[in-house]
Each structure stands twice: as structure tokens, then as C-alpha cells.
């Protein structure tokens, strides 16, 4: 398939999208912001018969609070997320991650649905969705199903989403009053960089000084898919999160990850950085908590 032979259609409704997706004799793929799609098309990796352009589907671009959580439409851009008052208040870990995606130009075009569907081990919003217990709504012509985030990814670039399915909603758990979150990213530079390691942390704090009642920690870019660090999570509640406790928890992180070596970094460094980012993140979180 040549790039010039690819057809592009721009449906006006979700139903129309699903209809085209279901066409058996043609391969098709969505294009939202195109920031992954165009790159891979040029590389020759993604050359479907048809691009289904969904950028204009405003019905899938929303952020709203419902009974069962905050609903984020897949076409919500990173910039939408960064500017959302609701998310700043109840999902600060996600706004922090969207702020780290590429740079402003990228954030204006790129969508959260695209970030999830690309399923890169280095995708920056993905670890935050793990600590926010996200549920991904997949819709096809025949049915709608909800997949918990920890069952969604099966490997680098691979998810449980079937060819005829579309991501139509992302439901996350709103953080409560005493919950705070942070996203830490280590890239080769500050903007336009692919994560060498990243980590999302969300903590529920208690009444006493730096008392942590529980929390979630998810690492990206250190394994084929996201790693929830259960051991570190368990350690969060042992002692108040003063510097020494932070160091102990961070010290346990390197054993939890299974990174590879590539052009960006060695496995050894990635391991050390899992600890370093957790340490830095917890320190910054506690400082913010003290100063609230």
C-alpha cells in the first residue's frame, strides 16, 4: 500500500465510524491528532486502506464528572486536560502527565485516546491511568464493553481492543480531598522527549504529619507494559513519609522493574532511575503536602 493510495474519510458520528470500522474487505485505522499515526505512516508501519479521521468528532471530546467517576472522551487533547479545572482538582497526576507530553504543539494536537491506543511502553498518560483505576470503554457495532486499565495492554503496541472496536470513553476515579498525585518523567531533555523512565504516584494522606493511608505507584518505560509497584505501595503506610522512609521505599523500586537497554538508556540506568524518580516524586509530593 502506498501513502498516496490511502483513502481518508471523515465520518460525522460514532455510529458511522463503527460502520466503516466493521467493513471486512478493507483495513482501516483511526486518525485522531495524527501525532503517532502520521509518523508511523511515513515509516511505512501503518498503511491501512482507509484512514478514518475522527479529529472532528466533538461528541467524543469532553471531560465531565458522573456518578461512577470522571468521564474523559478519547478525543480530549492533552491541552484540554492541562486546562481542565476539574482534572486539576481531582486528577492532578493526569494533568501533570499531559503537560509532559512532547511540547505545546503536540499537546494541542495529540489526544488521550491516541496515547492509549498507541500503547507505547513510554506513553506518558498511561501510568497515571493505572493509579487512577481507569476503565476503558470499547464500542463496536454489536456491543459496548468496559475493560479495566490493568487488563487493557498486552504488550508494546498491543491492547485487547479488537479491529472493529473504538475507544469511546475513559472513566477515572476522582481523587478525594486528601489525595495528591505527581508525575515524574526522565527524558533525554525537557521537551519533545520520549520517556527513559516515568512514574505516576497517587497518595491518600491521613491526619498526622506525613501520614500516608495508602497509595498507588505505576512505572512506565521499564517493562513491556506498565509496572504497578506493589511492594513500594505496601511500604507507603509503614512510617510517615519523612526523608528516610522515602529513601527506603525508593530503594525497593529498582527490583520491581524489568527494563531493557536501547539507544536511549541502559537497563542498569533505567533501574536506578526507577528508584530516583520515585524518591524525587515522593519528596516533592510531601513538600507540597506540607505547604498546602
Amino acid at each position: 500500500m502506498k501513502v498516496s493510495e490511502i483513502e481518508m474519510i471523515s465520518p460525522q458520528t460514532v455510529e458511522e465510524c463503527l460502520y466503516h470500522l466493521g467493513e471486512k474487505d478493507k483495513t482501516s485505522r483511526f486518525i485522531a491528532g495524527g501525532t503517532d499515526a502520521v509518523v508511523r505512516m511515513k515509516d511505512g508501519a501503518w498503511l491501512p486502506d482507509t484512514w478514518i479521521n475522527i479529529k472532528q468528532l466533538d461528541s467524543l471530546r469532553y471531560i465531565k464528572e458522573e456518578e461512577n467517576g470522571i468521564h474523559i472522551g478519547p478525543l480530549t487533547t492533552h491541552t484540554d486536560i492541562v486546562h481542565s479545572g476539574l482534572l486539576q482538582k481531582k486528577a492532578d497526576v493526569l494533568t501533570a502527565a499531559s503537560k509532559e507530553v512532547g511540547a505545546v504543539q503536540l499537546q494541542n494536537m495529540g489526544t488521550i485516546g491516541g496515547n492509549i491506543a498507541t500503547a507505547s511502553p513510554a506513553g506518558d498518560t498511561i501510568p497515571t491511568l493505572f493509579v487512577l483505576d481507569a476503565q476503558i470503554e470499547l464500542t463496536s457495532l454489536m456491543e459496548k464493553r468496559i475493560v479495566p486499565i490493568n487488563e487493557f495492554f498486552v504488550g508494546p503496541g498491543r491492547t485487547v481492543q479488537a479491529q472493529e472496536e473504538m475507544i469511546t470513553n475513559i472513566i477515572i476515579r476522582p481523587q478525594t480531598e486528601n489525595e495528591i498525585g505527581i508525575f515524574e518523567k526522565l527524558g533525554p531533555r525537557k521537551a519533545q522527549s520520549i520517556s527513559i523512565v516515568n512514574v505516576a504516584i497517587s497518595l491518600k494522606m491521613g491526619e498526622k504529619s506525613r501520614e500516608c493511608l495508602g497509595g498507588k505507584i505505576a512505572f512506565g518505560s521499564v517493562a513491556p507494559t506498565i509496572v504497578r509497584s506493589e511492594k513500594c505501595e505496601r511500604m507507603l503506610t509503614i512510617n510517615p513519609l519523612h526523608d528516610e522512609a522515602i529513601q527506603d521505599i525508593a530503594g525497593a523500586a529498582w527490583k520491581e522493574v524489568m527494563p531493557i537497554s536501547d539507544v536511549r538508556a541502559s537497563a542498569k540506568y533505567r533501574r536506578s532511575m526507577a528508584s530516583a524518580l520515585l524518591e524525587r516524586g515522593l519528596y516533592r509530593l510531601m513538600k507540597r503536602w506540607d505547604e498546602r
Partner: protein
Amino acid sequence: MSKQVEETQAYKDKQNLQWVGKPVKRIDGSEKVTGEQKYKTDYNYPNMVWGKVLRAKYPFAKIKSIDTTKAEAHPDVVCVLTHKDIPGFNGFGIVTPDQPVLCENVVRCTGDAVALVGAETLEAAESALELIEVDYEVLDPVTDAEKAMVQGAPKLHPDGNIHSHVSIRNGDIDKGFEEADYIFENTFYSPRQMHAFIETEGGWGMLKPDGSLMIQCPAQYGHRDKLQIARALALNPERIHVYSSPNGGGFGGKDEITVQIHLALLAHNISGRPVKIHLSREESVLAGIKRHPFKVTVKTGATKDGSLVANKVCAIADTGAYASLGGAVTALAIEHASGPYKIPNVDMEGFCVYTNNGIAGAFRGFGVNQVCTGIETHIDMLAEKTGLDPVEIRKKNAYRQGDVSSLGHVVKSSVGTIETLEKAEQCDLWKNRDLYKSQVSEPWKKRGVAIATSFHGVGMGLGSPDYGAATMELLEDGRFKVGVAIEEIGTGNGTVYAQVAAECLKCSLDHIIVVQGDTTKTLDSGTISASRSTYTGGRAIATAAPNMINLLSETAAEILDVPKSEIELANNKLMVAGDESQFVTYKQICEILLDKRKSTRVEGHFYLPKEKEELRNSGGAPHHLYGYMTHVVMVEVDTLTGQTDVLKVVAIPDAGKVLNPQGLEGQSEGGAVMGIGYTLYEDVLIEDGMHKTKNFTDYIIPTIRETPEIVTIPVESNEETGPFGAKGIAEVVMIPIIPAIMAAIHDATGARINRLPATPERIYHAMQATKKPSLISR
């Protein structure tokens, strides 16, 4: 007054300057900022053919056969060309033409061109490449420059793998080390930096109905490109016209032939249609010229009082598969390897070596970036050992104008090192460095402040011709067209040319039209490289101006009917001295000249001053002229991760007279950022001859978020020979910042990184090696 004297006065007059030294806006500023400026590769033409190059599949292999039948059968293919279709000499290269236009028997790197396709669309051209069948016999690539030098290593070229060997010896090195109280010895490795210009290599070509060949492409020396094209195509160079300005960035990467000969070959095989080649970024990474990675071993001896007494340097440059300017780069590196100092005993040698690692060539700094780190690091180590002030050590050892340098020659041109160091000592960042260092943004971060100084030759050095020429034409509307072949590659030299012309001709800046990079309209004026274009082009214009003034005055005298000696140059007109009512405008003069069928055009030629004698085996040292520079930088290192930010830069160039302060700042800031990229981020990784770095995804250049506050404080040492006292700074602005950042990292963390780029990972591991892991709140 003789012409020579007049001319000398014109460019030396520093009183009442109207344009020179003023922050005039760039003549091409608004079109650049708005993006309206069109580069050569931005153009498309009706009926255009797309050209594509088939690159080698392996870094080192014999070609057994090339079969183009299938590609030729592609319905949208116009032509497929191989080495058999080259009418002239199948090779190019500025100094040694050892790079095949299209490979015949052997490929030596994956950037090598094996065949050309011309097709109706880019896509068709790309698919036709896949239809060309090349039968290779794969050879083991030579990937390490040092191993390549060893006897028995597979030979890339008939004369062996050592392309050049240069050396400079002065004094008695053994005696020097005997006198030394301290000796430091270290090995430094430098990255394969990429020019990363915004406009990748490309352009278009066309055979005109009259049989002349037109090439439009970004390039750094159109007049020389003509000769290289002519040699390969067996054409008369006068029948080739190259339009090579403006460039979307050059930095040395377009000094060598890029696509010109390929365009010329295609143009000759497509019946007069225009043909375009434009490398994708990936292809530019693969086939474009890069900076030479060096391994430099430096041994420096010093006495207790801080005197440098001996310096021994051995540098090995990996030039990749072809020479290009590798020999010259290595020679310039060795000339500069002992810094701007007067070390009595030196022994420096450099080898330029072929490998199968891409192709290296000219790049801003031209070898000095790679060697400046050794001597500067050792001076800092000496300061640490002795407790002496690092600035004092540099001042003590720096040569002044009239002193004998480490090379053993008397430096006759202006030298600003000591003034730049004094300015550095007085700058806020250096004076208050302890305060700045204490203001870390988070407790586990550490700051360091450091200083380094360096220098860089201006012009070609001995052994290569080095001249400038300018034309000046009075136009019917009374404006002047000033032609200097030297291209605009982003530096803003055209604005400086306009300033110098307007100053000399006493007219307003908008009366000057500058033409650059057009071989039909300009005289050969040498390259845009070697920090030479302000100096050379400026002097050529200042040499042409008196000829124009002479022509104007003669004509005015005739019109006003007074002796020529009574004619005076005023703003945009000529008048009778002391009588403002009697004047003629430039426009009127043009009318008269045209009426009389007289030429309205003059020329000026200038040959750069040179040293008399070349140092034996040095490959062109010494230069007559150098630019000098000191940098002060502050870095902050995150000790948890090794991430390092350069937070502040003070740049102190000795530029001679500053002709355009904004232009100087532009160079200084761009140079600083490029130096930051070199030191902290950039490297094209090649393993077993294959590129690991393929695109900007993995080639990390600084963005605006990595760009620190940069303050530029020029030292204006007057250079007698320069236009209005100017010299060149375009390269030196990225040099001392390299060792300065390395020293600042050491100041912050105690770690020394001798292998660049100093990535977070390398800094982290170097810190680990010096002490226990750094933890929070210590």
C-alpha cells in the same frame, strides 16, 4: 591620493559611523521570522522530475553487479543512472576527490550513493529504488579509527586508512616534562555531532535550452561547486550556473558537494525537465556530513607557580569513509590543541583515519571543539592541585599580540584573550558564583560555575587560496547592487555587507541591494566557512567602494563642471564642497553614465593576509588571524538522575570591532546553544557501521527549554586589517563553552566526564564512581 590609501582609509575610519556598529535590523529579518522566505528546496516546478538516491545496503561491501532493468520498467520512472552514466570523473571531495558520485566496485558506508532514479513522483522514485538489484559481497566493516590504523586492517582506500598525519613540535618536550612539578594526562572522546539544519540537503537542476546547466541548491561555495560538477560531468564550468543562497542553515554541512552532481547527472538525462532532490531527515542523518569524532590523549606539564611548560597531544579523527575536509579539520585541531597560550614545549600530532562510519567533514569549530577540552580541563586540574585561581593561570599563560605562541610563531594580529578573561572575572556570575551556587532549586541538586577560554583561526590558513571579491553596481533608481558570492547560511552576513557598503558609500541602508550566492552575478569570493565571511566580504566591499566613489565623483565633476577634487560625498548625493546647492543625486549619475554607454559597475578584490612560512608538517598552520573567546557558565545537576541544566552563560568574544551588535548576539547565542548540544545531548550513534540514530526522535538537540540566559559582552580588540576593525567569531562562539560546561559539572559534583555528550546516564555513573549515591536532603 592613491587608490590604495583611499581604500585603507575608508575601512579604517571609525569616526562618525552611521551604519557600522549599529544594531540595524537584518535585511532579511522579516521574511525569515514570518516564514515567508523561500529556500531553494521549498520550490516545486511544473513538469518536475523527482530524483532519489539508492544508498548502500552495507557499510562495507564489494559490488558484484547492479541490475536496473526492473526499475527502468516502472511506468513512472524517467531514468535510472549508475556509475556507467558519469561522463567525467567519478569522484568528488574538496581536497581529495575520493568519494564516488555513484559507487562502482565497492561501497564504504551506508551513505554511499549507488544509483539514481528520476521519476514522475517522489513515491514512484522511492518504489523504483527497491527494484534496483545490487549484488553485494559483504565485507567486515572497519569501525574503530585506532584499529583502522593498524597494519593488516582491511584497507578502505588504496593508500591505506590513514588519510593524513600532521604534527607540530616546538621546544623540547622531554625537557618540558622534566621541569614540570605536575603532570596531567587524560583521554577525551567527542561525539559525532550533526549539523541538524532546518533545511536538509537538496535542490533542483535543469538543463537550459542553450545547453547550460542550472543548479539551485543550498550550498556554501557555489563557485567551487561549479568546478566539482564540471569535473564529474566533463563540462565547461562556465556553462554551469549555481544559485546557492539563502541556505536554511549550513554550519559546514553544505560546504562539500551534497546533491549538486546528482542533480546535474539527472538533469542531463531528462530532456530539459527540472529535477528535484530533497533528502528526508532520515536520509540526511545517514548520508550527510557529520562532525569528526575524536579520541584525544593530552599530557600537560606545569610548574608550581602555574606556568604551563609542556603539552603533548595525540588526536585521532574518524573521518568515516571519505576525506572531504578531514585532513584540514585534523590540521586545524592540532594547530589549536595547546590553546591560546605560550607553552614553550609542545609535541602535537593528529591522524585523520578512514573507517566505515558514515562521512565526516566540515562543522562549525572545525576540529577545535574536540581538542579544546584537554588543555582547558588540565588547567582546571592544575588550579585544583595548586590552589591557584583558574583565571589567573590562564592569564599568566595566554599570549598577547607580539608574543610567541605555543606553535613558536610571533602572533602579529590582535589578541583579546586577556581582556576576555578580565571581563569574565568582573562579570556578575563569576564574582557572585558562591552565592549563585548556594541557590539550588532543590536540596539534592548541585550547582557549579566554571570558566574556559579558547580561540579559532579566521580564514583558510596557509596552503589554500583565500580571497574575497565584491562587485558594486549603480542602478537606475540610484541604489547600489552589491554582489558578494559568499552565501547567506543564516548568519546575517548580507546585513553586514549592506552596512559596510552603505557606510563606505555614505548612502542609506535601503539603497543597498545585496546579491549573494549567484555565480552568474557575483565573483568567486571563497567559502562561507572558516569564520571568514564578515572579514573577507567586508574587506572586498571596502575595496570596491573607492572605485565606485571614484566613478561617481568623476561623473559628478563633469556634470557640475568643477574639478573632481572639489566633489564631496554627502548623504545619498555628491555635492560641490562647501556649497550644498550644487549637487547631483546618484540617480542622475546613473542616467548620465548609461547615456554615455559607460559601465556603472566596479569591482574590488582582496587577498587575506597570511603568514610567511608554514610550520613543517602542520597542514596549514599558523593562521594570521584568530578570534578569541571566554565563556563563564553555571550548571545545575540533579544528583538523583544526572540530568544537567545549563542555567547561565556569559559569552565574551573578542570579535574585533563589532559591526552589528544584534548579529553578534545571534551568533553568540546560537553558538552557545550548539555548544550545549555538543556537550550534553548530541551524538549520531553508529554501531558496526549501521546508524542507531536515524532521525530527530533519537538525536537530541536543545530546545528553547534547554536554552539558558545568555549574556554577551564583546571585547573589541581592534584588528587593523579588518573592515572597520572587525574579525570573525562564527565558530569560536561554540568552543570554550564545551570545556566550561564540563568543568562546571565537575565543580558541582566532583565528577569528570571525558566522553561527550555528558548524558544524564554518563553523569550519573560518573557521580556514582566518585562517591556514594546522593540522597535527599543532605
